[in-house]
């Protein structure tokens, strides 16, 4: 039996003209497939909402409180494991150096002082180079080039700020 267009009318629940209604009624009486479609549709439209057992909100509050406690406990344990694990790893990695440091302190003190002196002299030299550079270079660069450089730097700064703001925003929707 041809179910078209009756099946579509029943499935789409579209408004029908009086003639179409009569045609549909006649078809439904003769066709068990479309009759089942119509009857199940009526049944579906007459369904009701089932409420939960009384005290649902109270049970939710209890569950939320229990979950918060569990979450806090989990975080605390996580922190403990992280600290202990991190400490153990650090100790394991630095153990050979620590042993060397403890056994000969004079050697590492000399090493640290030498290193600090190297940093200080390097910074001093760099400062002097920069001063010479700043004294010589401005004479060679025309003012409009300076304006271009400053504008470009300002633009980059703005782009950076906007990017941080855009990516830093919380993702919406679940």
């Amino acid at each position: 039996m041809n179910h078209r267009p009756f099946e579509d009318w029943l499935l789409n629940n579209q408004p029908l003209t009086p003639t179409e209604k009569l045609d549909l009624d006649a078809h439904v009486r003769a066709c068990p497939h479309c009759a089942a479609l119509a009857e199940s549709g009526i049944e579906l439209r007459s369904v009701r909402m089932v409420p939960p057992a009384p005290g649902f909100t109270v049970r939710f509050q209890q569950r939320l409180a229990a979950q918060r406690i569990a979450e806090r406990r989990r975080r605390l344990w996580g922190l403990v494991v992280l600290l202990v694990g991190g400490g153990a790893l650090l100790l394991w990695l630095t153990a050979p150096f620590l042993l060397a440091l403890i056994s000969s302190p004079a050697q590492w003190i000399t090493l640290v002082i030498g290193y600090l002196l190297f940093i200080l002299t390097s910074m001093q030299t760099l400062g002097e180079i920069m001063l010479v550079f700043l004294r010589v270079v401005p004479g060679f660069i025309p003012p409009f080039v300076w304006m271009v450089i400053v504008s470009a730097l300002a633009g980059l700064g703005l782009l950076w700020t906007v990017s941080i703001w855009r990516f830093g925003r919380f993702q919406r929707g679940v």
Partner: protein
Amino acid sequence: MNEESAWVSQAQQGSDEAFTRLVETYQTPVYNLCYRMLGEPDLAEDAAQETFLRAFQHIRRYDEKRPFATWLLSIAAHYCIDRLRKRKFAMFSIDEEDDDGNTYELPDPSSPDPEAESMKGETRDRVQAMLKDLDETDRAAIIMRYWYDYSEAEIADSLRLTVSAVKSRLHRARKELAGLWQEEKPRSKPERRPHESPAF
């Protein structure tokens, strides 16, 4: 700003009281969806509670452009679909526990008349029995369409499907339900008792 928007906004700022108001307002729609999806009151209660917990945890991510009910029911539907999919794997063992420790109970064979009890339940909610035979996502679409009067676009938004996919799922599910309705019809007719009039 209406009352619901105010509660949502307060809940987003961390107000437990405002969220409790939302739970009170939406407990029945959420529970009903879970019950229609899972078919058992205990599982439905657990799923509804879990839905509200998830909503509470992610309330800051809620987009105010969407209706709150749609967002909430979407969480419930996805949770139930996942749960039903997990349950499929546990169906081989009757006493097996699911991931939350719930067991699946069958009617007690030692009860006075298990068949009669079972039949009573079947006739009490025939649609519920037929829903169980549908695919999880089709079931969610049917529930949203007929219990909540959701449009195809709203269902698509809730179930993360396209509108054409929702349409085809609804059509397929309706045809499947009609087939089940046809199969169930002769069985659900009450048997005539001796000396009873054939008219009843």
